[in-house]
């Protein structure tokens, strides 16, 4: 492959910008901080000049590290990953959207992060384990526990 590293990264960003943003937003819960984390991560990657062949988990891990660095700053952290639909928007319910956003916010950070990577970024448990640098069993257990919690909380809301 006769492609420079910077060009590889640029293409990766263009192909995965939405996934990266959703993940970064789920971590920082602040729109500006989410964008800053992505920018910082790519800036660091470009300075480093090389990366493993499998870019996906590596770049996501870099974004995670940058988002974690941002967590040290005192910022308002209330932004969710969903956009409330307007009434005319594809028949989606703004109430349901807000409710799901609130339910996700009640999960632990590990559970929320795993669900976001699995459901919105279509990652396998193995890929998530690579991003988080933990065992696949730990990831699977975060996911199951998170989904259980979501189910229970949803049931309680419905009552």
């Amino acid at each position, binding site marked *: 492959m006769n492609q*420079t590293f*910077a060009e590889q*990264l*640029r293409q990766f*960003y263009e192909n995965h*910008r*939405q996934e990266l*943003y*959703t993940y970064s*937003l789920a971590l920082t819960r602040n*729109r500006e901080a*989410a*964008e800053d984390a*992505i*920018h910082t991560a*790519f*800036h660091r990657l*470009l300075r480093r000049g090389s990366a493993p062949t499998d870019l996906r988990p590596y770049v996501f891990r870099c974004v995670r590290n940058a988002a974690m660095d941002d967590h040290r700053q005192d910022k308002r952290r209330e*932004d*969710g*990953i*969903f*956009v409330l*639909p307007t009434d005319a*928007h*594809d028949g*989606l319910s703004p109430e*349901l*959207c807000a409710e*799901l*956003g609130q339910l*996700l916010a009640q999960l632990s950070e590990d559970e929320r992060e795993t*669900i976001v990577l699995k*459901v*919105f970024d279509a990652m396998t448990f193995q890929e998530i384990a690579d991003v988080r640098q933990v065992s696949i069993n730990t990831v699977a257990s975060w996911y199951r526990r998170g*989904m259980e919690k*979501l*189910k229970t909380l*949803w*049931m309680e809301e419905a009552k």
Partner: protein
Amino acid sequence: MNEKDIEGQLQEQSLARPSAMLDHRMNALFHEERSKRPHFLLRGVPIWLTAAACLVCAVAGFGARSMFVLRRHPPTVVYFFPANEEMARFLTGPKANWNDGFDFSQAHVEVIQPPAARGNQL
């Protein structure tokens, strides 16, 4: 309700999108990276590589030097002596009988230039 139902409900929601400002910042970042990258001819060469290249060139140059320098043959000096007994003894006798004080004054001396040197003189 099972996991798949919840996943389906989550996936149906519209996700927050990154702002145009992020794209702008990222484009600026990649553009800056492209402009920073030096042309391959202008890339810095490590000092150790430069030193090694100099050393190799010096050794190779020294080795190749002999191929280009003409060999100098020293001129040959020939002594012609008049035939006599003393000379015959000197040439055929044992080394111990050699007389260091041999009289060369009667010798006729001729200096023969090597062919290459003669060519150069022409």
